[in-house]
């Protein structure tokens, strides 16, 4: 609708911006994608280069059971990360959405501050916290809760903690927007109609926050599915994830065609899940 109105009103600047936007996307998004797709159909050269011989072999290798396990593990981690992010983010987002203006600004800034630091550095910080002689183990031993340091780093848990930490803001922000749109009067109305706190949450807040959960879910699920820094640094590369596998194919094994095929496999999976979500009732706009 907005596009329509823009197109009918002052036509020239709109056309100009449409053309420039299309050019930008075509040049920096679509073209590389086509290139990677081309590479995924090529063969690996003897010493790691690309030989332009068309083949389906790379995609056949994607269907290998070993790769399947990695796919499954990545999906599980990404799914769990999304769910935990949603659970942790909701109370935070609620407080943010209902806070008075000055407080809202302060809290939002606090949520955004981590973005001002490089993701790699922030992930290294978790290494310092979690490793055997790290902050957490030292603290627990000093306080007498532990005799021996717990093996925290290079476990599934550490990867998981890293993912939740890294992507939490992407869940918080859409939820804040969604909750802000729910009138506090609706909460009052529910209480006035005999709802307990829990019932009000289940029947009013939760269903009306669905758009926020959906947007946040997509923003958390997709990057954590392809994440490679976190599994690499906090998981020690012990258990392969999709992101780390792709990274290794490109940089270590120097098998660009297989890496490209894996990338397209990942993209295909995400698009399939997106399509399936759209067909359920959750995907439909409740308003």
């Amino acid at each position: 609708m907005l596009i329509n109105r823009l197109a009918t009103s002052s036509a020239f600047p709109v056309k100009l911006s449409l053309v420039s936007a299309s050019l930008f996307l075509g040049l920096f998004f679509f073209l590389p994608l086509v290139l990677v797709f081309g590479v995924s159909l090529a063969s690996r050269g003897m010493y790691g280069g690309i030989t332009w011989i068309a083949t389906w072999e790379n995609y056949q290798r994607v269907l290998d059971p070993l790769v399947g396990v990695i796919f499954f593990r990545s999906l599980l981690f990404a799914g769990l990360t999304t769910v935990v992010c949603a659970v942790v983010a909701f109370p935070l987002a609620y407080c943010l959405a209902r806070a008075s203006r000055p407080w809202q600004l302060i809290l939002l800034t606090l949520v955004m501050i981590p973005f001002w630091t490089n993701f790699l550095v922030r992930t290294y910080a978790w290494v310092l916290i979690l490793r055997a002689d790290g902050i957490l183990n030292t603290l627990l031993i000093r306080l007498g809760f532990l005799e021996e340091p717990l093996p925290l780093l290079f476990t599934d848990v550490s990867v998981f903690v890293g993912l939740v930490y890294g992507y939490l803001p992407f869940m918080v922000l859409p939820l804040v927007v969604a909750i802000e749109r729910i009138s506090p009067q609706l909460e009052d109305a529910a209480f006035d109609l005999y709802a307990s706190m829990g019932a009000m949450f289940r029947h009013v807040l939760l269903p009306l926050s669905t758009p926020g959960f959906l947007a946040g879910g997509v923003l958390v699920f997709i990057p954590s599915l392809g994440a490679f820094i976190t599994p690499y640094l906090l998981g020690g590369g012990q258990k392969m994830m999709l992101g780390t596998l792709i990274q290794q194919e490109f940089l270590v094994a120097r098998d660009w065609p297989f890496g490209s095929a894996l990338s397209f496999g990942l993209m295909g999976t995400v698009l399939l899940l997106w399509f399936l979500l759209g067909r359920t009732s959750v995907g439909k706009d409740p308003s």
Partner: protein
Amino acid sequence: MNESVVLDKVIKTHGLVRAVDHVSLSIQSGEFFSILGPSGSGKTTILRLIAGLDRPDQGDIFIQQRVVTLDPPHERPVNMVFQHYALFPHLSVFENVAFGLQMKGERQANIQKAVSHMLALVRLQGKENRLPGQLSGGEQQRVALARALVNRPVVLLLDEPLAALDQQLRQEMQGELKRLQREVQATFICVTHQQDEALMLSDRIAVMHGGKLLQVGTPQEIYDHPVSSTVAQFIGLSNVLSGNIARCEGGLCRVEHGVLSPVMVTCFPHDSPQGAVTVMVRPERVHVSSDMSVNGYDNMLQAIVHHVAFSGNEVVYHVRLRDETIWMARVPIAEAQACPLAVGQPVYVHWWAHEGLVLPAHPAPC
């Protein structure tokens, strides 16, 4: 007397503002009670206190002779119609109305029956499956009423129930509200800033200003005998004139004003107001004519026609007195046409002494 809701010296502060300041109020069972006041006068806060959505800082609230001051909303036999209805946008009309009964754990068959009955009562049959967003303002209003009344509350609280409706719907819904009240026989407490609405609907009215109750009484009492000029101004427009009592005996006072000629006003014979007062005359009691020698009136002030407003069946003359205050006179159309007045024309304003009211300039709080 059977009291439905009693407030006893209730105080509620929001930040630095006293939203409700020592309010004591007793509302009878089955009454249509309106709380009238400008926005920010604390009237909505009173409703929220009765509903249990806010707690008073001091004082007590009783519902049917039981203290409920600290009870949560779901333990009170009270339901509320919110200002913008606060319908659940994701639930159908049926689910909205059924919400309260469902929360109370009513049996499904009973819910079905009660909701259907209620929807029939507010004339919304056939719209059960619509979402609130698909309804007109008037229909949303009726869903909100049904959603509250289906729980058979002892007291129904209405927060500006008609404010969001256009003029015609508003008049229709006024009748509808009275009819509903007769059928469900609950106490209705209605908050509004529309004085005509309050006058038309209510058995009694409480006028609020700045968190304080100024006056409680029947519409007639409040209209005819306002305790202060604030109340008088709020209940229907009034012409006012400030002055000092010069003499007062036998129920007749002479009020002097620095610029204007002195005026005569009657008061209760046992009253003898003194000092600074406000004299008030309703616009429909004021007569204007270009003729100085109109017979018999007790009072006459010189003025100049400032503005003439035609409103169908009457003409409202805005005239400027010699002290620059603007008075209004409402004149029936036939009378106005008989001797029309033009803007800028010098005129005389007349009224009887008994048609004026004399009020203390600084009233004691009630």
